[in-house]
């Protein structure tokens, strides 16, 4: 369980411009979260803080009740976090299998197969794959580490609608069937609707949380 407690963030050079203003929220396992907001609302900063790529100016981020600073940010990223980016971020001189192995010791070929890539595709240079296939490799790499939290920054931004929907379905499956906590930053309200919870950020504060699962049940 990942929790942000009264987190405040601003750039040291621009103290008057607050990016995140005393935010608190608890992300639970087995759920898929969508973080919505306009550009500059603090979405990516929030994701960076959750990933341990940066540290809040005030407040703390806890993993299972322990401040992530205590065990080190590198360790937090390695053990607890998987990151998926808009531009896939694969190592260009490695094959898909080798890229997945960077993420962890899970069966790389099996993971890639589960993402819809056959063995021939898995052994090509990663740059020879299509955008959708590259994003699937990125997700497979994120899963290889078996981390409980999956953070995705605009994961479908470069994909066509059909492929985007397929990727979101994979995220949903990971949350609901593999009990992962999936936190996805997106601009698309349509895709956000597929998440269990939608957090809307505006000027560094959470202005709305919408439990879509609860609405569906109602």
């Amino acid at each position: 369980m990942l929790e942000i407690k009264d987190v405040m963030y601003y750039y040291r050079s621009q103290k008057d411009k607050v990016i995140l203003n005393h935010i608190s929220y608890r992300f639970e396992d087995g759920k898929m979260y969508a973080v919505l907001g306009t550009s500059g609302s603090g979405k990516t900063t929030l994701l960076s803080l959750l990933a341990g790529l940066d540290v809040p100016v005030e407040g703390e981020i806890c993993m299972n009740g322990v401040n992530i600073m205590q065990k080190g940010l590198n360790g937090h990223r390695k053990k607890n976090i998987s990151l998926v980016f808009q531009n896939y971020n694969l190592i260009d001189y490695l094959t898909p299998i080798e890229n997945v192995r960077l993420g962890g010791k899970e069966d790389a070929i099996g993971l890639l197969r589960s993402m819809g890539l056959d063995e021939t595709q898995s052994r090509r240079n990663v740059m020879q794959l299509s955008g959708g296939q590259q994003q699937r490799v990125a997700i497979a790499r994120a899963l290889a580490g078996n981390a409980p939290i999956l953070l995705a920054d605009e994961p479908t931004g470069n994909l066509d609608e059909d492929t985007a929907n397929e990727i979101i379905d994979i995220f949903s499956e990971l949350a609901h069937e593999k009990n992962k906590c999936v936190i996805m930053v997106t601009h698309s309200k349509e895709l956000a609707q597929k998440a269990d919870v939608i957090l809307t950020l505006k000027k560094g504060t959470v202005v709305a949380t919408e439990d879509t699962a609860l609405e569906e049940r109602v």
Partner: protein
Amino acid sequence: MNLFGLSIRSVLRKRAKTVLLLLIIFITSAFIFAGWACKSASIQTQNESRQAIGASFRLEENEANRHERMGELSKLVGEGNGGEGGYYQEQLASGDWLIWTDNSFETLLMEDILRIAEVDGVEEVNITTANTVVNPVNFERIEDKDVDQSSDQRGVSLRGTLRMELDFDVQKGNIEVNEGRMVTPEDTDVCVVSREIADLNGLQVGDYLEFNNWKDRENSNVYQAEVIGIYTPINGITPIMYGDSYRSENIIFTDLSFPEKPEGNEGNPLYQYATFVVGDVNEYEAVKERIQAVDIGWERYDFLDNTGMSDTMKENFGELEKMSSLILILVCISGVVIICLVFLFWLKGRVHEIGIYLSLGRTKLSIIAQMLLEGVLVGCAAFLLATAASPMVSRGIVGYLVDCQAQVRTEDEQLNANMVLNGSLEGDKTEIVGITVEISGDVVFLSGVSVLGVIMIAIALSCISIMVQKPKEILSRMS
């Protein structure tokens, strides 16, 4: 995937980068190799006056070592006036330094000569003093009346010798003793004069010549030497300096210990050459090896064989070591700068990769270690290539350096040629006949360590930019 796996894949699959880095490190390594090889290079020189010494060896002072010793003693003496170990310095009123050495500094050491003489196979030894200018007290010297003698010492040259029959000019046939006899080790206070001096002064064997210090003609002690022989110049003796004091006809051969007396240095001789005659010519090379195995301070000497080749234990060209050190320093610095710039350029292109690794939880140190390993892998390949090319490259560079020095020396000689008494004559010119550049295990080891150091420093410096950036900054640059 481990660090090595990632590094090897990066090196093998990013070929353009690898080839460029390989080329840069290869060039750097080749120059570093050359620098270290220069330090151990030996240059065989041939001196016209050193040739035709028969089945014998000649020992003489090493010029580079002489300069080195002067430098060391100068440090010992410090800034003030004074002397140490035969080296003296004095500051003149003008602020310039007057530096001179005495015989004890310049001479071949008798104990070293005796140790070589004891080597099995060495049959005879001759020792020759430096030509010593003294004042002729009771006779006239040969003089060119048309030349202004004001800058000459107005003396004659004494050449002390243990066995005159082994003297270089006698062996070479430049002179011939055709009246009386030559000097032997048993002689004391004897001399052999030229036919010209004998004729000018009406001298005969059995007459006595008197000499004293040319710097104090009036008051210095006068020493007598009996004329035991008269020689006729055949080809003449090549003078070592300009001026009538050194001309062939004014060279007087004496017993070994005589020249130091009228010079005012009794007990402080100046032995310039020692010649060791080999009994069995067939044993020549074996005797040479045995002599070279004698434990003496070889760095002080040049050791010449019968071809006039100098197998010095130290290179003849004193500046070569300084120049090779300079090359090493320059190559190392430029290598660090170039590799550093190349890596900085690549790091800019690898921000994406670094960001990915950081997002996967790798530490910055582990990423830098990968970069270092990549550099070392390429460096190893480049170093192997450089090792293969090093004999050729090193010889080329050493040859170039030696040519430069020879050119400087020639220019110096041309300048000095106009200065009476200070110029060495063209007839005694040293010619370079070969350069030996040995790529020994030490050279390979030192070069390897230097190349590794250059790579490590360059990559570590270029990776500072990674160390100082936050992961988020790298990731934001990447996006």
